[in-house]
């Protein structure tokens, strides 16, 4: 099975209105593509993405997504500092039917994917 991974430069979507930006990402997730954004979505954009995703859920085997970034994972760093430092770090958005596991080590995110149906 071929899994597409799309890396999107921030300049390419940063000036888009929120609704259009979210639709752009969601259209790719619905086609079971993994989306890597050069820069993080804001919390409001993430909320919009979740809201719009819920309208599309369970259609054509699309069950939603996982957002992965250096901000998440089981570590004990103080998160405020992490957030403020990592706003410009990439954000990976994976259709949930592909996501298997995320391993986080110092400075490295390892994403395991598997088609789950």
């Amino acid at each position, binding site marked *: 099975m071929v899994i597409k991974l799309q890396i999107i430069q921030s300049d390419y979507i940063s000036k888009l209105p929120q609704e259009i930006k979210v639709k752009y990402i969601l259209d790719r997730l619905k086609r079971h593509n993994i989306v890597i954004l050069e820069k993080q979505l*804001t*919390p*409001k954009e*993430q*909320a919009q*993405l*979740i*809201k719009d*995703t*819920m*309208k599309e*859920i*369970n259609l054509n085997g699309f*069950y*939603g*997504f*996982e*957002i*992965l*970034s250096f*901000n*998440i*994972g*089981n*570590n*004990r760093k*103080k*998160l*405020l500092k992490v*957030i403020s430092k990592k706003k410009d770090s990439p954000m990976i958005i994976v259709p*949930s*039917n592909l996501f298997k596991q995320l391993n986080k080590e110092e400075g490295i995110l390892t994403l395991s994917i598997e088609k789950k*149906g």
Partner: protein
Amino acid sequence: MIMNIMEKIRGLFKKRKNLNLALYGPPNTGKTTLANRICKDWIGVELGRVSEVPHETRKVNRKESIKIEHNGKRMWFHLLDMPGITSKIDYREFMKYGLTREESLKRAKEAAIGVIGAIRFLNLVDIALVVFDSSEDPYTQVNLMLLGNLEARKIPFLIVANKIDLEGSEPEKINEAFPQYRVVPVSALKGINISSLYSEILNLV
């Protein structure tokens, strides 16, 4: 200057009769158990049904005019128990709890509508309790998204580290993760440390 502005904001809150107090969080963190505890403590009835199957609460449950009192302070609230917020809902997960395919699909559809409603309600909330399961990893993107949205909307909130009665619960981990916020460890189920929560809620207004 900042103190004056804060006092004015507090004054505005005090003039209003009821504040919308909303319980947010991921699914299965004990929001409805906490809502039931609050309702039982102050009006003697429960608000919603609790289940081990995720997304038991699929629409916003509301109980009006609950008076919370602690140490001479009191305030009236409309309590809003929100559906759990998540970025994914797979109906097949519900089948693992014994639901039929049809029941699971229906539940998934209703849960998705519930998530949309919970996010839309963010615009109507005055105060939020963000309920985390203290036996789970708090560093999830949905949790960050939720806290970020409350901050962006300038909604005062507390983090409730629930389920401290569970073996493996680590409320201190939530404290370490979010040192900039007030974290109140409780067990909504057993009623542990609930009076501290009431005190903290009243300190927010």
